């Protein structure tokens, strides 16, 4: 047994020694130049990013406060401890890190696993929250840090991390920790901002999650940006329509829902919302027309109830003939 341990130790020392020797002759490609997107500056440092030195185990609240305050939200790590810190785990979970910015009128967006998207966000002026793993896959040591810059020439990333206000990391070292941490990164967005590399589905999912607690005005900003960027996405129009509806701009809402339906005629959610808007506009017959062909039996439960509910409201308004409806009801939507 002793022999085996000694043998292992010897092998380990040999391996270590040989790698140190090898390091003299092996050069590896620099990382950042190879992943620098077209148009990105070769060097960026978001020096105005605030710094909050972390307390023990509490890099989650500290890193989150860093990106939130950088986006002009008002908070502190202390205020975020009850929001994201999980005592029994001595840390913070990704799902709560993602959800927390909503409480401050901000969206969170999960970046892709490609280093390019991290660099692109930095180049666009947004610090990036990353998850690092300084351990091994079976013995992980997780840590959140905020990347605030990079330098292609020296192949280094600049971070706010732990108790260090400014720490430079060789890109390869950074990549080992990021890669072992599952290449997880997020940015915090003000309503109306969309990441450079954003995927429409992921962004719209983030915006839809944001909608629930947001003011109609903020929600409108978030979806309006999506309508501009991806006019072919029906959900973007639906989201903007709902923001308009909640703000009381019913005819604007109806227009957006109608646009969503032109893109995706089978979207029952959009149809339901359009019908409700038409009803509110005093056009019960047109509203009913929207839902007449919808087979509620084929719908999943929650949407089904919404449609049945809308129908019930329409019936109460006693739809009669199209001719009897106000002129504003005709063919506008």
């Amino acid at each position, binding site marked *: 047994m002793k022999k085996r341990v000694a043998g292992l130790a010897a092998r380990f020392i040999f391996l270590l020694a040989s790698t140190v020797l090898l390091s003299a002759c*092996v050069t590896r490609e620099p990382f950042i130049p190879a992943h620098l997107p077209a148009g990105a500056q070769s060097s960026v440092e978001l020096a105005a990013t605030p710094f909050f030195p972390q307390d023990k185990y509490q890099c989650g609240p500290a890193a989150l406060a860093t990106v939130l305050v950088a986006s002009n939200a008002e908070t502190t790590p202390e205020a975020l401890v009850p929001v994201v810190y999980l005592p029994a785990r001595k840390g913070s979970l990704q799902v709560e890190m993602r959800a927390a910015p909503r409480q401050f009128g901000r969206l969170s967006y999960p970046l892709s696993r490609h280093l390019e998207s991290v660099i692109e966000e930095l180049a666009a002026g947004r610090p990036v929250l990353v998850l690092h793993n300084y351990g091994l896959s079976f013995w992980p040591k997780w840590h959140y840090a905020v990347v605030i810059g990079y330098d292609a020439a020296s192949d280094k990333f600049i971070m706010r991390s732990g108790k260090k206000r400014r720490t430079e990391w060789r890109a390869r070292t950074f990549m080992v920790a990021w890669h072992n941490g599952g290449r997880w990164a997020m940015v915090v967005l003000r309503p109306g901002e969309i990441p450079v590399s954003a995927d429409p589905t992921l962004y719209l999912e983030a915006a839809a999650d944001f909608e629930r607690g947001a003011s109609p005005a903020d929600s409108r900003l978030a979806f309006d940006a999506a309508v501009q960027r991806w006019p072919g996405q029906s959900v973007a129009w639906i989201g903007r329509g*709902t923001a308009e509806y909640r703000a009381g701009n019913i005819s604007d809402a109806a227009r957006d829902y109608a646009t969503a339906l032109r893109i995706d005629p089978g979207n029952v959610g959009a149809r339901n919302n359009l019908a409700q808007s038409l009803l509110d506009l005093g056009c019960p017959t047109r509203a009913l027309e929207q839902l007449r062909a919808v087979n509620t039996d084929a719908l999943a439960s929650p*949407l089904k109830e919404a449609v049945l509910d809308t129908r019930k409201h329409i019936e109460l308004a006693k739809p009669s003939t199209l001719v009897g409806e106000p002129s504003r009801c005709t063919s506008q939507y």
Partner: protein
Amino acid sequence: MKHSPWRKFAVGILSIAIFNTGMVGTASAAIADTASLVTIDRAADMTVVRTHLDRADVRAKMEEMGIEATAVDRRLANLNDRELHQLAADMQNAPAGGDAVWIVGAVFIVLIILELTGVIDIFKKT
């Protein structure tokens, strides 16, 4: 088997429950939340369907994990059902970013040396 319902319930959920309240709390209530209309592809390969999620389960678990009762309520209120499921799944074992202190510094340094010198290449497949 005692623990497996927790795991199961955590692992797969087709987010029908994402519909949440189903309605925006405005005067006229039949507008469907946009969240209920976003297609979430990753829900597709989930197998366990639970239409109703008992938030009380998660609440109890969080208190057990050291969060004050008043804080738990506020925390859960901020999560939609999809996130709640995720939280339930993550609480025990998912990454929880914590300490910056390099308790395992030696391991990491060895890893870095191996990587830098080309003995291993963890990025090979990406």
